[in-house]
């Protein structure tokens, strides 16, 4: 499973992008469960967030959904921070 996160906006307006490929990872199951929940709760079109809030684009195996701060689900927040931290 290929999980990509693109974060735009924020006070700084600086974009970040990272992705994780779960194949061969010992914790792949955990990633899959998290990613499926996060995507299921995403929006099909980008929501207009709050002023200076981050906007997120989440792509899992080619399927893209959108979310924006501060109204992320726990799974979305967890997945996004893990991918931005551990991804390349």
């Amino acid at each position, binding site marked *: 499973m290929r999980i990509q996160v693109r974060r735009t906006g924020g006070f700084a307006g600086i974009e970040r992008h990272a992705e994780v490929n779960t194949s061969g990872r010992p914790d792949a199951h955990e990633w899959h469960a998290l990613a499926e929940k996060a995507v299921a709760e995403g929006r099909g079109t980008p929501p207009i967030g*709050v002023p*200076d809030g981050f906007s997120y684009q989440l792509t899992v195996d080619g399927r893209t959904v959108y979310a924006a701060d501060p109204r992320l689900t726990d799974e979305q927040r967890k997945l996004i921070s893990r991918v931005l931290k551990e991804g390349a």
Partner: protein
Amino acid sequence: MTNNGGLEPVFCTIVPPHVLDKLARNEDPALSGPARRTLVRDAQERGRRRVSAEFGLAAAPRAKAPSDQPLRTLYDAGHTTDLPGTEVRAEGSEPGQDATVNRAYSGLGATFDLYLKAYGRHSIDGDGLPLDATVHYDENYGNAFWNGEQMVFGDGDGEIFLDFTIPIDVIGHELTHGVTQYTANLTYYGQPGALNESMSDVFGSLIKQYTLGQTAAEADWLIGAGLLAPSVTGKALRSMKEPGSAYDDDVLGKDPQPATMDDYVRTGRDNGGVHINSGIPNHAFYLAATTLGGYAWEKAGQIWYDALTGGELTERAFFGDFARLTVQAARERFGDGGEELQAVEKAWEQVGVRVL
């Protein structure tokens, strides 16, 4: 919440009107339904004090004038994302151990002061709205935002961004999003969104200048100076004096802001480039303010304030619409043919914005 008419609480206070507007058009009835009902409720309550209901104060119109003192409350999210968090400092209490809390408290006070003393505005809604802010939001959170009813500040990750309460202009920037919300309510997308961002940068910078007692010539005209970690190659996040010059770093890339319409960036990202194209009206303000000289909040700031709050600026205004209102405000406040009018007209011309 006692006055939400049985609506889903999530739509009751947090979501700004332009977001509700968008949600109301959503295909998913689970999203559009509550948003539509909230918009109807808001319309019914308009004319009454919408905020009094939201804050659980008396619903009847207030008979006495709002106070000349701010009503600040600071909360600590304890590195979670729960808002508002635990109350850590109330209005009038002594500074505590947490420098972040104390900085935010002072910044809210400075913002309240500028709006009141320079423009006669009582808090961000013009009617004494309590000022709430949450610090230590989330872990290593490199951002600050206005959620429609309060400010939220992250601690930064320490590698790129430091604590977002460090620059006073960032605090002023966030609160000015509130002022914009309560006045022109500029849609947070594309040109009106870039204008919304520019209002926050302009008044954020003026709050810093007012606090430091700087003239237009003395000011640095930077947004977010002191926010970047020492390892980052850059002086701030944006420069009103020279948009595009704030940083040029291996990790962050280069400041993408244009100074004139020739370099206007068309993009769908960042809500249609709201933090990018704000460089253009930002630079226009800088040009007008430095041409006029003296304290920027007195003349250029007054003109911009009049245009923002005068009631004629629409939610979907373009740069040219705003420019027209500043020209009108310069004429009405300082006289036809005066140096103020000339400076404002020249500033828009220099950044390539045609006055509509």
